[in-house]
């Protein structure tokens, strides 16, 4: 029997569409952690991330079963686009109902005890620095945070990011530029060194 793990995404889609559920399981295993990480990074709520993750795959499965998926070799990007749209829907609905937008969240970085540690081993300093940087990224507006994650965690090109988020490449580039500017600005304001011990 052919090893499903060695097949491409589009081959697995074709096999699943022809009745082999194990092909779908392979696709799920291939993308579950990466997709969940993306969703949870954006929504910052595990239960909500699970719901959106599940809805993403439900939509994907229905589309596959209807034969509406077009093989382009970008199954992962397609899944991410579905998740992105569901996240947008959620935030839109949530905003209408009451909650404060993530953009408006304030992070009191200076009062975070973990940021006050000094005089520790280089490796610990580095770990602390990386945590600090993640906090700075976390404090970015949602659309900038999303681009940073797609670029640096998912290693997507700006073309792919633009396609997934439904904006122009220039807008995606602009969001990244502003993200970097904001990270620098916040690091200065909060006295966080953006450097690693060598």
């Amino acid at each position, binding site marked *: 029997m052919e090893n499903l793990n060695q097949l491409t995404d589009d081959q697995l889609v074709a096999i*699943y569409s022809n*009745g082999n*559920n194990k092909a*779908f*399981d392979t696709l*799920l295993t291939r993308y*579950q*952690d990466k997709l*969940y*990480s*993306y969703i*949870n*990074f954006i929504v910052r709520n*595990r239960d909500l*991330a*699970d719901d959106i*993750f*599940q809805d993403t*795959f*439900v*939509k994907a*499965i*229905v*589309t596959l*079963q*209807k034969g*509406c998926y077009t093989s382009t070799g970008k199954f992962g990007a397609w899944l991410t686009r579905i998740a992105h749209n569901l996240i947008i829907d959620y935030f839109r609905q949530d905003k209408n109902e009451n909650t404060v937008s993530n953009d408006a969240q304030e992070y009191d970085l200076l009062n975070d005890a973990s*940021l006050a540690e*000094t*005089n520790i081993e*280089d490796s610990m*300093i580095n770990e*602390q*620095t*990386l*945590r*600090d*940087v*993640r906090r700075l*990224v976390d404090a970015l507006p949602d659309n900038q945070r999303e681009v*940073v*994650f797609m670029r*640096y*965690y998912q290693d997507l090109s700006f073309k792919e990011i633009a396609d997934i988020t439904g904006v122009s490449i220039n807008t995606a580039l602009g969001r990244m530029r502003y993200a*970097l500017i904001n*990270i*620098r600005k916040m690091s200065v304001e909060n*006295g*966080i*060194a*953006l*450097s*690693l*011990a*060598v």
Partner: protein
Amino acid sequence: MDQTSTTSSYFSENIIRTAIKSGYYGKPALKTLDFIREFAAGLRRVGELDGEASVYSLN
């Protein structure tokens, strides 16, 4: 934070990439994965029986 001579003063995208890559963002719950697998298998059966797969809206 202490910035001694052992600390390089560079700022680049690499530190952000490293920070993002080294973060842990969780995994989907097992019950969620089970549901999805069952849905993937079950939807086909529904569709094969009477074409009701279309009851699931894509929008």
